[in-house]
């Protein structure tokens, strides 16, 4: 229950971190909040030869609005900083709603947005939120900057599109189009545990109250965040009725998700939870979309 020996480097600028990452590549692991990496090292599931600690790179901790209303967040911004920031509830309400579900207060004080995305745990909240919101990710390496669309970022369990020498530096959440409702719901045995199932919903209604776009993304439902395209497509062009939500919940829970089951929940129970959560989340999101249109 103690980490194996490793070499430790703590750059205090992004330039230095980028150059160390280029120099050491696969040999080193980047340390962000450490709320997943350190337990894995304590268990010796992971034994990196070197850690490059990003916690002194303060230039990666910021939340600011870009032109056009997008919210740009530095990758080392902690989950707690997101919870208390005044811009997040208005700009990215889906993210704001999911934050309290991430583990416990003590974990959110250290855990970072970038660290969670790069860790790519299929049971984590932030990858699901980033995918649902269509976030864009900026990576830095010695070669320069690279923008990554969230749709191509997750490459399976604990795998991403980042190269070993690349550092995720910024996450940009685009503004939510007018008339959009949102909802995040998950079910866990105890508060703060990994959820047995969870869903993020974005639903936009047009001037006639007809569903113009929809997004349903699930956690702990496959080898990464699961985007239920077919269920979402089934909603488009119709009014948000209980029958339409039921059909979307059927498609997502029976056809599109692929949960593994574990000691807390069998696969059947996970599908059942996905069905119930989908219906409830769609109801909440559509109520919010209607209120957004009315205002």
């Amino acid at each position: 229950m103690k980490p194996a020996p490793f070499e430790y480097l703590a750059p205090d600028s992004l330039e230095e971190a980028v150059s160390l990452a280029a120099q050491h590549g696969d040999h080193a692991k980047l340390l962000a909040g450490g709320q997943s990496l350190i337990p894995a090292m304590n268990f010796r599931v992971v034994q990196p030869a070197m850690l490059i600690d990003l916690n002194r790179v303060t230039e990666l901790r910021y939340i600011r609005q870009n032109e056009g209303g997008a919210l740009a967040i530095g990758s080392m911004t902690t989950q707690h900083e997101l919870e208390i920031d005044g811009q997040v509830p208005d700009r990215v309400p889906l993210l704001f709603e999911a934050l309290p579900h991430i583990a416990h207060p003590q974990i959110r004080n250290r855990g970072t947005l970038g660290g969670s995305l790069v860790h790519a745990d299929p049971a984590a909240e932030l990858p699901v939120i980033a995918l649902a919101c269509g976030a864009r990710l900026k990576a830095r390496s010695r070669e320069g900057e690279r923008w990554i669309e969230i749709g191509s970022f997750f490459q399976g369990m604990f795998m991403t599109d980042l190269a070993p020498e690349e550092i995720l530096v910024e996450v940009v959440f685009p503004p939510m189009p007018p008339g959009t409702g949102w909802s995040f719901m998950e079910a866990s045995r105890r508060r703060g545990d990994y959820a047995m199932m969870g869903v993020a919903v974005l639903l936009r209604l047009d001037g006639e109250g007809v569903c113009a776009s929809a997004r349903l993304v699930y956690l702990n439902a496959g080898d990464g965040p699961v985007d239920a395209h077919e269920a979402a497509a089934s909603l488009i062009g119709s009014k948000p009725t209980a029958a339409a939500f039921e059909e979307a919940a059927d498609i997502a829970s029976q056809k599109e998700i692929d949960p593994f089951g574990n000691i807390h929940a069998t696969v059947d129970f996970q599908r059942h939870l996905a069905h119930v959560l989908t219906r409830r989340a769609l109801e909440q999101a559509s109520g919010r979309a209607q209120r957004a249109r009315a205002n």
Partner: protein
Amino acid sequence: MQNELHTVHLTINGKQFERDVEPRTLLSDFLRHEIGLTGTHVGCEHGVCGACTILYDGQPVRSCLMLAVQASGHAISTVEGLSANLKELHPLQQAFWESHGLQCGFCTPGFLMTLVPFLETNPNPSENQIRAAISGNLCRCTGYQNIVKAIQSAAERMQAKVA
């Protein structure tokens, strides 16, 4: 060099310390073995139980999920720093004592360190807020009922003091 020692300078309960540490030394072990502050308890060592919770620059964190070398230049508070002297308990400690908020006491330092900043920002918390605040701390004795009562009583006591 993997065994190379790093010099850390940090403030613990208001006192300055300087020590040489291996990078792999966890902050929890550093506090217990290098500084001798054994009030910080080590339960699960993977961030689940909350027994090792300390304040890091005023915020509760798991000391088993941090490296001592990371804490250089930062300020730490442990349960030993809660009361000014051995005769007088912090109002939160007093409330835990009076409401039977502990039995074996193993989890107590973690609860206390989680709750000190919580009560500063939420001086009049609802039961639901209290239960959310302590969701990251496990107690195997009390069933939490008396811990919640202790926190409510501490909140009243601390507010009365302010008023």
